[in-house]
């Protein structure tokens, strides 16, 4: 059995998958963090190769029965243990035209999509003292990069930050551009007008409900508890 180990980055991920698909025999793929040396395998490090990765990305779009770049990316962002092996299995089967009905990669892709779509609505910005708009989130999956393009066009006329507190990463946006940078979980003092505006929003939100028709269960399904701490109206 051959074990391929990549550096954990997305280009590294694509590189190792691209290489693995050309190999014969049994193969396992691990990121450096996941890899535990085993007695029988022969581990081989695969260095991230940007050009190769880009080439392979094209293949994912054009060389498969259906474009599969998105499921591959989304499965990677789900950050599940053993994603490398999962995605390899997925692509390997597709290549050999085997049935991939109800594959875990598909599930992960759906889960990530769902969280992304939800988050487009649930991100709550607060104006902070230095004048930009700051939002903290704790998503289950690593989705800030997926949120960025939407907010870059939506918030084009001011600076904004979306901070993933658990992964200690943030997207910083200004004008139409954005970049992802590490950012430790620090508290940013709020602008003085912030409290008043948040209060107005909370009151508006409350007044929207028709009294006597409260349906907590439905509401909890629609807005899962884990998102509440970051929602202004639930504060």
């Amino acid at each position: 059995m051959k074990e391929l180990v990549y550096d954990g980055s997305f280009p590294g991920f694509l590189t190792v998958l691209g290489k693995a698909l050309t190999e014969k025999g049994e193969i396992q793929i691990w990121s450096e963090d996941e890899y535990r040396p085993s007695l029988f395998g022969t581990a081989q490090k695969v260095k991230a190769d940007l050009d190769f990765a880009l080439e392979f990305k094209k293949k994912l779009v054009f060389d498969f029965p259906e474009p599969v770049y998105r499921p591959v990316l989304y499965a990677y962002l789900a950050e599940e243990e053993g994603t490398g092996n999962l995605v390899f299995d997925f692509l390997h089967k597709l290549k050999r035209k085997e049935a991939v009905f109800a594959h875990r990669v598909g599930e992960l892709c759906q889960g990530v999509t769902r969280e992304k779509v939800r988050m487009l609505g649930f991100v709550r910005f607060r104006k902070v003292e230095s004048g930009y708009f700051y939002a903290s989130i704790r998503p289950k999956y690593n989705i800030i990069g997926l949120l960025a393009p939407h907010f870059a066009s939506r918030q084009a006329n001011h600076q904004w930050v979306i901070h993933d507190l658990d992964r200690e990463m943030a997207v910083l946006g200004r004008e139409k551009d954005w970049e992802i940078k590490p950012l430790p979980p620090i508290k940013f003092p709020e602008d003085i007008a912030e409290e008043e505006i948040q209060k107005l929003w909370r009151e508006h939100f409350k007044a929207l409900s028709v009294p006597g028709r409260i349906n907590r269960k439905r509401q909890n399904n629609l807005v899962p508890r884990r998102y509440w701490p970051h929602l202004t109206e639930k504060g």
Partner: protein
Amino acid sequence: MELVDRLKILTAGARYDASCVSSGSRRKKAGGSMGICHSWTEDGRCVSLLKILQTNDCIYNCRYCVHRTDTDGPRTSLSAREIAELTVNFYRRNYIEGLFLSSAVRGSPAQAMETMLASVKILREEYKFPGYIHLKGIPGVDESLLKKAGYFADRMSVNIELPSAESLKKLAPQKKPADIFNPMHFLEKNRREEKGFLGAGQSTQLIIGASPESDREIISLASYLYGKFSLSRIFYSAYMPTGDPRYIPGVQNPPLLREHRLYQADWLFRFYHFSFDEIIPPGQNDLETELDPKSAWALRNFWFFPVEVNQASYRELLKIPGIGPVSARRIIKARKERTLDFSHLKKLGIIMKRACFFVTCGGRRIPGLPSDPDHIRPFLTMPVSRPRQPRLFAPPGGERF
């Protein structure tokens, strides 16, 4: 009064309005995608817009309305600047995708409309607001005001509210049919002539249950309206008994189930290629409450069935209870590759609990099922969706029946 108190009153005043839907904005590119739900209210409705009244101070006395001159709740207003600032502040914080602004008639129709216009003008011109704006058109206003409004707004709605001229006369004596239909015609004309004018179209609303019109009359009005105007949609709003009981007696609870059935009928009309007579046959005045209108049609027209899913046309598939536009298209795609059997149908998302009575697969039916309408009927009425939450917005997109 403090801003926050006025906000509370004017939000509560707007919440019975049907329309959380925002789609098809011409500003899609500049403003991000529409139809994002930012939150859900305690009663389970999607929040995507700041939905508010400019004022609840009204010179009219429409009998069905909480804001009529007869009532003595507190009267208040927000200034154009306040509306604009609230909207921008909420938008920047990602609380909302846009504004849904409505108003009572303060002073005169023109004056009320002008204040609303001033609000959206500040938004668009001063704040360069890229989000979605839905503006209520006030009956009886001048064309010049409507024209301006149409440039600022993505969608407008002039609400018909009462489904007949008679009821309008009785319950909203100060409004004339022409006050409503002229603006609708005017908006329609401009929309046809000019690209970018009201990019997301116009809609309107009918109140259900405040006046004696039958479902037949309401559906016939709706089909007329869809034919005459390119309406994005019609909202049906079950009457909340907040009006004047001397004029609208005997309504204890809003007729939510009836509202729901009308939405289903509306869908059959718009997306299922049903004709008016198929939805409600000649001689019948109201939709069945017990059955959804599609199942009701199927049982009345049982000769049409069973339909062979491997051969039926798209329109025929749509007639089968349990199959909607999405699953009908899936069937057509899937059967190109293989002959479909019952297990395939399930995987394609067909609601077999309903469809099983009406289909054959490769000439075969599922054995043991009843095959006359009277015996099938109880199976179709079983999961009658209880009148759920007030359906202040239409059934969700994927609904199949």
